[in-house]
């Protein structure tokens, strides 16, 4: 059964239509990530689910209950804010209990839930501190604790890690994944960081310009992007894009690159000019003459692998991947092979066609 479902919801701000008819189903226990660049409507969509923004049109169902007209507190969802929004004058315990007191929950039940949450998040020792006496990571936990005690149908996170430093972000990300495993609760997580999305999500919903570009598992989205936008947004380093001229008949086609080299491939497309996309790991450095050659400009050694930034003869820039012990040096002329099963062609509307 789907826990949260949006049916054709719309939202405008002062006459400007921002969200125009989005429909979406989120399954119970699923961790869904809204991924998109700044201004793509992730927060707005999340806040519409939370009740912090009104829904102008359309339906919202949470836990089987029509919710678009309910007040935020009555929707059975809990939200973790980007800046945590912990009440500064209350202790950690009071912060977590506040929402429960407001619905007149019995004292011993509140006590139990707060203590349980503190144990889950390993912050028993912090309960009597004020937010000002906590580190950024601890505040983050309190914010999550404040959501957990409500035992909601779904958790909503709006960029919860963006205020943490890089190391802590990675650690907290893992902790969040663990927490989700343990609690098996429905979560919606907003981020513009594709690594976070890839590592956490059961399903990623990619938003662009307040439209859903693609919905899929992280690997789906990574391997079979729907569009030029998704292909460019997901993955780090990003996909290489090259101009290509497609010729030949279905089953045996050639894509001619700007430097004159030819790649054999098979794709359901007629001849014409397309943009060719290929991820760095599908471009390999070869010891023997191969598809084409390029001059290395920058060599990034990442330990287990090496990224080689190249310039083809016609000036096209490209990133290739080599092993950790790569011997390529800047200025070297290197041979390149393309893994033709990982090629994507994008037509002039930005739609993707995957090579077979």
């Amino acid at each position, binding site marked *: 059964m789907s826990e949260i479902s949006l049916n054709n919801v719309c939202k405008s701000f002062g006459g400007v239509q921002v969200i125009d008819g989005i429909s979406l189903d989120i399954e119970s226990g699923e961790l869904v990530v809204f991924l998109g660049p700044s201004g793509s409507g992730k927060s707005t969509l999340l806040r519409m689910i*939370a*009740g912090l923004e009104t829904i102008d049109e359309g339906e919202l169902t949470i836990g089987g209950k029509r919710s678009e007209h309910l007040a935020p*507190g009555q929707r059975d969802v809990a*939200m973790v*804010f980007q800046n945590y*929004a912990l009440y500064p004058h209350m202790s950690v315990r009071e912060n977590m209990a*506040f929402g429960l007191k*407001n*619905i007149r929950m019995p004292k011993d039940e509140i006590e139990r839930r707060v203590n349980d949450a503190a144990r889950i998040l390993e912050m028993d020792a912090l309960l009597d501190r004020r937010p000002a006496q906590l580190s950024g990571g601890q505040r983050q936990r309190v914010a999550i604790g404040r959501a957990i005690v409500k035992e909601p149908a779904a958790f909503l996170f709006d960029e919860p890690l963006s205020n943490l430093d890089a190391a802590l972000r990675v650690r907290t990300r893992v902790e969040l994944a663990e927490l989700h495993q343990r609690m098996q609760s429905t979560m919606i997580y907003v981020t513009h960081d594709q690594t976070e999305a890839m590592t956490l999500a059961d399903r990623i919903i990619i938003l662009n310009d307040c439209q859903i570009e693609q919905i899929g598992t992280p690997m789906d989205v990574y391997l079979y992007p729907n569009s030029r936008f998704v292909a460019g947004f997901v993955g780090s380093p990003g996909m290489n894009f090259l101009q290509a001229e497609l010729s030949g008949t279905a089953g045996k086609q050639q894509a001619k690159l700007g430097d004159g080299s030819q790649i054999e491939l098979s794709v359901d497309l007629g001849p014409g000019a397309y943009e060719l996309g290929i991820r760095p790991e599908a471009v390999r450095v070869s010891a023997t003459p191969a598809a084409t050659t390029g001059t290395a400009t920058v060599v990034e050694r990442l330990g287990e692998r090496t990224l080689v930034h190249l310039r083809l003869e016609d000036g096209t820039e490209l990133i290739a991947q080599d092993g950790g012990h790569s011997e390529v040096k800047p200025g070297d002329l290197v041979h390149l092979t393309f893994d033709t099963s990982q090629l994507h062609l994008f037509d002039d509307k930005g739609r993707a066609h995957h090579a077979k």
Partner: protein
Amino acid sequence: MTPTTIKRINWVGGIFTVFTVICAILWAFPIYWGIISSIKPEDEVIRPYIELWPETLTFEHYWFALTETQIGTWYINSIVTAVGVTVLTVSTSLFAGYAISQLRFPGRTALWWLILASFMVPTQVLIVNHFVLMADLKMLNSWAGIILPQLIHPVIIIVYKQFFDQVPKDFREAAAMDNASEWDILFKIYIPMNWGVTTALSIVIFIWAWNAFLWPFLAVTKTEMMTITVGITQVFDAFGVYYARQLSAAVLAGFPVALAYLLFQRRVTQAITLSAGIKG
């Protein structure tokens, strides 16, 4: 840093120190003069030259003020009216400031401009109207008559609105997710987050109300309803005005305020830094 620049900085600092000391003396001298005059015998007070220390020390004027006047009643009147003005002004301004800052209702902007405009009108301009109004309501010579016209302090509303405006909207949203009512949001979040403002404003209003003279002077004619500031004018007997006696009454009148400020001074500063910290 070269030795010359150090010297120059010390110079500037020195001049500044001298300047502040002079200002402090200018400011404090009348108070000092009032206090020592109140412990001089009357004939020393009226001597035409300046004596910085009394020849003979006497507390007879204080004794007179405390025993021969109704100073006890005046104290009570002052306390009741000053506390009344403080509590009522703070609580009404709090609600008004919150409503204008946080709620959306028709006429909100108009109301805000009205309050800003009334800020420009000095209360003295209205004093005749107030007098007629209070007379019509038969409230002259009563605590209510002293308190009501002193409740007009648009600036307090403005300060509250400004502070509530600065509370990040995340807190309001978090509270909404926490099922808090508008009432809860005001009393459990906005006010506690701005305790510093409330403390500071309360002390300031209390001091204003305690020191108020013009209105209580007009509103009260009966000696037993006077506040202490007005009461001072009554410290005379059949032989006329004794300066030292009046000064001793004035010192007694100012004493509680001075004490209150000394006691709360640290709290006020602390409270203000605290509420500034919340915003950081």
